């Protein structure tokens, strides 16, 4: 009997080398029997080593809860998560995981579903593809990878009954990538939905292409890989700003704005009104949840959580990663 809440004990039943960088892991309940049911797009927290926690999407068909299948890419700059998964785990290893959670769920829609996968971002979309195929929904999975050798879950896809719903795109970089995306995303239909998962630069290109083709912002559903937890520990009324390009972190206390903290650290960004009106300091948000206090952004921009005005806006999350 499994707890209704709390972590799960699982056994690594099978490890498969998908590509030079990606391995898949099949997990089964340590006590035998089914695992908690999950929806397409769900992820679990995995604790491969004490003190290390990583989120991985479930790849398998949501109709099958006898096991959980994960795809894990070894990140060269990893602080231990994927290295532990690749290096420490063997078939038969025991592992603690959380129950599945879903913040990337399928929508109920009457139009097409376009699944846009960048590299390892394919994992939640594979589970979605199986759920959509079971519903006989109108969908296409566009799978972007560096090369055919870098394609994870290739056999799994080609043997599936929905293999003809998958289109592969290899080695594309801008501007060709943009052209291909423009073509795929041209002519949004009524109630079409885009599901998007992949590295941030890939997601940005897809988003801007969708925007140009006048896809409504609400028709774009996305998941991006969460950032590493901050090295600094924010207090109750503080949050951490990480400047992705500079690779530094700063604490923002309740009484100070982000730009004043940046200034004290000697980092000047262009500002003008400093009241959240003019948009001069507009900054891209890579991760974390901004708390918008401006009057510049549109509702859609606000909801996307991808842009903010650091002169007045703050963070709801403890960590905010900015493209600075």
């Amino acid at each position, binding site marked *: 009997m499994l707890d209704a809440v709390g972590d799960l004990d699982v056994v690594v039943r099978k490890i498969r080398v998908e590509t030079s960088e990606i391995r898949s892991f099949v997990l089964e309940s340590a006590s035998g029997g089914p695992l908690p049911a999950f929806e397409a797009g769900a992820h679990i927290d995995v604790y491969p080593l004490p003190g290390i926690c990583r989120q991985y999407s479930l790849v398998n068909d949501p109709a099958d809860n006898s096991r959980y299948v994960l795809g894990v890419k070894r990140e060269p700059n990893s602080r231990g998560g994927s290295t532990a998964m690749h290096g420490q785990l063997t078939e038969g290893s025991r592992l603690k995981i959380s129950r599945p959670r879903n913040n990337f769920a399928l929508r109920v829609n009457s139009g097409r579903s376009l699944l846009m996968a960048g590299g390892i971002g394919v994992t939640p979309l594979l589970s979605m593809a199986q759920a959509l195929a079971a519903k006989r929904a109108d969908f296409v999975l566009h799978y972007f990878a560096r090369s055919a050798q870098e394609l994870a879950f290739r056999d799994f896809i080609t043997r599936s009954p929905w293999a003809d719903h998958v289109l592969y795109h290899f080695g594309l970089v801008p501007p060709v990538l943009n052209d291909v995306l423009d073509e795929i995303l041209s002519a949004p239909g009524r109630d079409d939905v885009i599901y998007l998962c992949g590295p941030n630069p890939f997601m940005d290109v897809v988003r801007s292409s969708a925007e140009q083709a006048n896809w409504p912002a609400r028709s774009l559903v996305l998941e991006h890989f969460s950032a590493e937890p901050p090295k600094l520990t924010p207090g109750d009324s503080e949050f951490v700003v990480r400047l992705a390009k500079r690779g530094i972190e700063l604490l923002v206390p309740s009484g100070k704005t982000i730009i004043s903290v940046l200034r004290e650290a000697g980092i000047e960004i262009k500002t003008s*009104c400093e*009241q959240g*009106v*003019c*948009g001069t300091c507009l900054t891209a948000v890579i991760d974390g949840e901004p708390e918008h206090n401006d*009057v*510049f952004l*549109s*509702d859609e921009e606000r909801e996307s959580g991808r842009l903010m005005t650091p002169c007045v806006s703050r963070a709801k999350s403890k960590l905010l990663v900015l493209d600075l």
Partner: protein
Amino acid sequence: MAVTTDRAALNEWVACGWPEKVAPGGKYRTVLLGQEIEVRRTGVNLFEVFECDEHGKQGRQLPVQAKYCCVFTTLGEPTRPLPEIPEFDEPDRRITGCGSVGVHTSPFRIIENFLDMAHFSFVHTDILGAPERTEVLAYKTEHRKDADEIWAIDCQFYQPAASKASRGGQMTHYAYRVMSPFSVMLYKNVFDDPTRNDAICLFVQPIGETECLAYMPLAIVDRESALTSIIDFQQTIFAQDRVILENQRPALLPLDPTIELPTRADASSIAFRRWLKAKNFQFGVYEKKAA
């Protein structure tokens, strides 16, 4: 004056007169975006519009529509129809134009002034604003993508005499709607009746980049006032704005937010400028000259 090459400007419907400007059978010449045109009134509500070539001879015929107490034409291929303003079809409203008023400034300055509440207490003192109640309360702006319009909603301002029908001060509730770069309107609640709104439009005929005609059709709820007084009220207000508008420098509208420092009361102006920038408007827009 040269005809603009800005497609974004050419592809809009713009006002070029009002139906009663000339008697049936009459005609007049005017200028649109630098292009001279001739408007002919061929029947009570029938119009023809032609371009005039550089020798003043008749050129190609342009599309024309008479609606909302105005005559509209276009020099390009409009990407949107004239806006729907259903208030002009409501039988119990007073529907009137106010002729046109010439203003020497960019069409967008005129639109922005119409959107601005902060000037009420200073420019329309004791009418649309009181000197002791100058605060612009927070409001919301939005870009409505379906119609490609900019809206400012939940606006409110204390007004000593909000309209000709007013018999005292009130907190007036406003909604602003920018239907195109050259047309804007507002809805403001009727004195003593929060359930109904007066609809007041402002259509701008851009003659050149800093020379315009402004048309102000009204569809308002007021059984009492004489039409003459209603028009008189509107013209009085606009003539007060006109002085301010003609003294604003630069006359062209800067889209770079660092040139004119906005405050939070200017949220609608910022939304309007972002929108113009996204449309890549060149006509009527201030370009900072390199030092």
